[in-house]
């Protein structure tokens, strides 16, 4: 639009706003221009720029604001211009600029880059003391409609800059049904449910158009609304040398001093929407802000939260129309202090307030002690103040110190004689007396017995009165009660901010399994395919044909070094030094108490290098276990956890070897042997094992090639009706073979003897090993129970079912499966020994379970070695 267009707009505005059209004006746009929308619709009433570029800004000047296309949008009038350093940004500027969450933090976030850029353009260097022009303005034309919010279902108008509490007073509503207003966040008397968030302090919450307010009331219990899950709260961590709580004169001075000493400083102030709710070890501050939670990690914390004004305790102190001096100043500034409000002199204490709902009179004592009644519609009190030191007290023992009036010691008020002491909990002076008489006479007990100080203000209003009462009754001043986080209520969303459930790992074949229709389950910290939809078919493929399974979740470690053999001899209860390169050996892992906590295999690559596997669940602890013991033993070994780097696919079944031959493995390794080979073009370490009871070849390979290898095996096995098997089938297959699952068929105190696995321990191997001493001691004690195999006709009982013998519980089932091959249910179970022997039968699930030798299938191992 040409200048003529802007001029025409100006003349239109002048006519509408009764301005002399000859008045000079400027025309400009924000950077970025869309900010002009915030002027019209978002309450933006300030702007700021590099002072060096803002010489022409003067109070009283008019501006036509332009949009991105240069078109005129509205007319504003500058009401004030203040030049100050970037560091000394006026505390209300975050709110007045109207951007983001309207916090000062957001203001800094967007203005620092902007000012840096402008400094660069002007050949200046940006710093904390860079001068900034802070300009406040009012919207002149078109006139903005008065914004409204809804309070207790009623639409009320408010003025720009109002807090919710002021907006309520403006509409004739006492914010919280009664009680002295401090308008400083110290008392519970203005609590409201604001936009579904209960226990919100109306005095600290800026009024925003469209807000929904329900007055809650002092001591009132809010009906906590259900909050939509999409209102998730974010969290952010900041680090600094010094965190200063409170940006009053004392706090700013403390911050300046720290900065001058070269320390990084973060300043926080609830007037900027930064409400410190707790001081934790670290120290770490938990800060509520409109945009989420802040965790401020500081080397030192300075608490400069000032003092809170004393509130009266006397009959009628819960009436509406009572104000502290500071609150009266706020209301007076907004033109809301009612005519007929009287001010009591400094230190003048009311005897009682009179009225019904709202105050109509106040009674005080004159110099001669005679009651004097003054009629009024409001009372301003000036009872002195007490340190607002809850956060400082929370930081006891931490590098947290209070400064200014927050650190000062104030005189206690006279002991209260009647009335409500703690407005949060409704505790009265009579309650205090009752508790005192029952012997609760120290501050901590007093607090617990009365609940005074446990409410939303955490003693900010009642603590001086409690201390005064105890001093009067007991004769000694007692210290304040312990302050603990939180000082403010938080929503459940805030409590959950920044927390995550433990992640579940995925193998490189995760999507492959899903594409095959697998039902994925969490097992041992991994997502694993439980079944592809036909567990029996998967089982039969293994027993009669060929199948593949994803065993990438097995723990895998490389160990090398001059002490590798000696180290592993001390780790494992089986011999290691006699293992020849290319051989595989099953091994238990014992802790120092001789209990089994994991199992796996040992593969020897060469004289000084080994490859180890661990269970899925034990993998995450295996590396730490080995590293700790290597250090403890002083062994010179290299250790590398290969669990995430290597995928593993188990090719199993009577036709597995034939399949692998077709895939390039000309000579599949014999049982318990290993070989390096290229299978389907993928380099693999091939381990011949037999967990399923059938010939099994684990193909360990680079995880990045897992999908390629899986697809190639499936394609090559199509002629054999190859199908993948899930974990459910695998658990059944291994059960028939009598193989244990550590954690499922073991308890925390399972020794090899209790598991019937003495064969996996060689006490005479010539090396000390972890758990050896314990096993020697345990073996001198008669065996009391052991893992046994049982058979039951019919379906499998549930895992965990008790073993009964003559009505007595003699053990429990650990694994169960109805075997299609055997035609009956097979079980692993812990059974108590009776007179040194396992009874031949038990009752399980109302049926007779017969003890049988393990394994259930192929006891000679013919199939697995085929």
């Amino acid at each position, binding site marked *: 639009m040409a200048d003529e267009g802007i001029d025409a707009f100006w003349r239109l505005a002048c006519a509408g706003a009764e301005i002399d059209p000859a008045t000079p004006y400027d025309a400009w746009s924000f950077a970025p221009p869309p900010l002009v929308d915030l002027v019209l619709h978002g309450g933006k009433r300030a702007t700021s720029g590099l002072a060096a570029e803002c010489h022409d800004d003067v109070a009283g000047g008019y501006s036509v604001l332009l949009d991105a296309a240069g078109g005129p949008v509205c007319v504003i009038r500058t009401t004030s211009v203040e030049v100050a350093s970037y560091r000394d940004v006026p505390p209300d500027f975050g709110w007045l600029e109207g951007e983001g969450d309207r916090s000062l933090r957001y203001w800094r976030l967007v203005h620092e880059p902007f000012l840096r850029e402008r400094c660069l353009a002007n050949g200046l260097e940006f710093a904390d003391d860079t001068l900034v022009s802070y300009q406040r303005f009012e919207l002149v034309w078109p006139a903005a409609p008065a914004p409204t919010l809804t309070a207790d279902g009623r639409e009320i108008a408010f003025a720009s800059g109002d807090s919710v509490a002021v907006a309520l007073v403006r509409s004739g509503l006492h914010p919280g049904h009664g009680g002295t207003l401090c308008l400083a966040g110290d008392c519970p008397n203005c609590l409201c449910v604001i936009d579904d968030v209960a226990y919100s302090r109306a005095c600290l919450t800026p009024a925003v158009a469209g807000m929904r307010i329900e007055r809650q009331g002092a001591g009132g219990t809010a009906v906590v609304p259900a909050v939509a899950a999409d209102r998730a709260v*974010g*969290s*952010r*961590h*900041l*680090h600094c040398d010094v965190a200063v709580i409170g940006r009053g004169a004392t706090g700013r001075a403390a911050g300046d001093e720290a900065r001058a000493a070269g320390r990084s400083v973060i300043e926080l102030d609830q007037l900027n929407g930064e409400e410190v709710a707790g001081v934790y070890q670290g120290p*770490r501050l938990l800060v509520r802000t409109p945009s989420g939670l802040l*965790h401020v*990690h500081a080397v030192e914390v300075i608490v400069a939260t000032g003092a809170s004004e004393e509130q009266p305790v006397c009959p009628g102190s819960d009436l509406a129309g009572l104000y502290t001096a500071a609150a009266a100043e706020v209301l007076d500034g907004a033109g809301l202090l009612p005519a007929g409000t009287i001010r009591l002199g400094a230190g003048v204490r009311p005897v009682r307030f009179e009225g019904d709902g709202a105050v109509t009179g106040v009674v005080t004592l004159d110099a001669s002690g005679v009651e004097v009644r003054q009629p009024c519609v409001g009372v301003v009190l000036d009872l002195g103040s007490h340190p607002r030191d809850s956060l400082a007290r929370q930081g006891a023992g931490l590098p947290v110190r209070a400064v200014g009036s927050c650190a000062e010691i104030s005189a206690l008020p006279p002991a209260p004689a009647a009335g409500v002491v703690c407005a949060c909990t409704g505790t009265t002076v009579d309650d205090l007396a009752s508790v005192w008489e029952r012997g609760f006479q120290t501050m901590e007990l007093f607090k617990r017995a009365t609940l005074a100080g446990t409410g939303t203000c955490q003693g900010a209003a009642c603590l001086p009165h409690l201390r005064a009462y105890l001093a009067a009754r007991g004769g000694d001043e007692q210290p304040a009660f312990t302050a603990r986080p939180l000082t403010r209520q938080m929503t459940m969303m805030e409590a959950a901010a*920044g*927390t*995550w*459930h*433990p*992640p*579940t*790992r*995925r*193998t*490189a074949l*995760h999507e492959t399994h899903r594409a095959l229709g697998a039902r994925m389950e969490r097992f041992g910290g*991994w997502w694993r395919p439980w079944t592809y939809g036909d567990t029996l078919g998967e089982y039969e493929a293994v027993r009669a044909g060929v199948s593949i399974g994803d065993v990438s979740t097995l723990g895998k470690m*490389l160990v*090398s*070094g*001059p002490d*590798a053999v000696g180290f592993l001899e001390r780790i494992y209860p089986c011999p290691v030094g006699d293992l020849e390169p290319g051989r595989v050996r099953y091994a238990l892992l014992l802790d120092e108490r001789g209990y089994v906590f994991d199992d796996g295999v040992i593969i020897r690559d060469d004289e*000084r*290098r080994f490859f180890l596997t661990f269970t899925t669940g034990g993998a995450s602890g295996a590396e730490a276990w080995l590293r700790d013991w290597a250090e403890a033993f002083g062994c010179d*070994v*290299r*250790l*590398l956890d*290969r*669990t*995430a*780097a*290597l*995928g593993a696919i188990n090719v199993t079944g009577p036709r597995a070897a034939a399949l692998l031959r077709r895939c390039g493995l000309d000579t599949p390794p014999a049982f318990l042997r290993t070989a390096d080979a290229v299978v389907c073009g993928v380099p693999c370490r091939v381990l011949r094992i037999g967990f399923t009871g059938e010939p099994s070849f684990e193909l360990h390979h*680079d*995880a*990045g*090639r897992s999908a390629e290898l899986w697809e190639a095996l499936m394609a090559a096995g199509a002629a054999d009706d190859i199908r993948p098997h899930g974990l459910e089938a695998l658990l059944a297959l291994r059960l028939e073979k009598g193989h244990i699952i550590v954690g499922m068929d073991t308890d925390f105190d399972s020794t090899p003897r209790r598991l019937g696995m003495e064969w996996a321990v060689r006490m005479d191997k010539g090396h000390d090993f972890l758990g050896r001493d314990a096993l020697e001691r345990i073996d001198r004690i008669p065996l009391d129970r052991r893992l046994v195999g049982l058979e039951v006709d019919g379906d499998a009982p549930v895992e965990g079912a008790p073993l009964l013998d003559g009505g007595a519980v003699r053990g429990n089932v650990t694994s169960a499966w109805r075997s299609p091959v055997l035609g009956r249910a097979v079980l692993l179970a812990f059974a108590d020994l009776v007179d040194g022997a396992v009874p031949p039968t038990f009752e399980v699930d109302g049926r007779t379970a017969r003890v049988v030798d393990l394994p259930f299938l192929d006891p000679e191992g013919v199939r697995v070695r085929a």
Partner: protein
Amino acid sequence: MSAPEPIFCTRVVASPAALDALATDAVALRLAPDDLLLVGAVDVRPDDPDAIVCRDDGWALRRMTAAEASALVADHGDWSVPPAGIAQGALAGLPVKLLIDPAGDALLLVPRPYLADAVERLP
């Protein structure tokens, strides 16, 4: 910022002295005195007969600026980011490694089994 993507690396576990003496132009993360992670396929031969040198497919990598890394850590971790060097810790409950070079570039490495969670949790 782009999402993390699977990469392959070279893992070298050797005596600290052998790793100290190792010369390579590859992006290197010294995870521990005896543990070195090199981004990409790198042919290195540390002076240690027992060294373990192998391809490592266990990682996903995301490139970003140091400023973006700082913001990411501030939003999802409780640790502070050093001006340069390697940092390790949890972000959004996931174990990560962060390499920041003095030029202002950063690499975020996530164990590959957590890749899907990283995409979801670290937008």
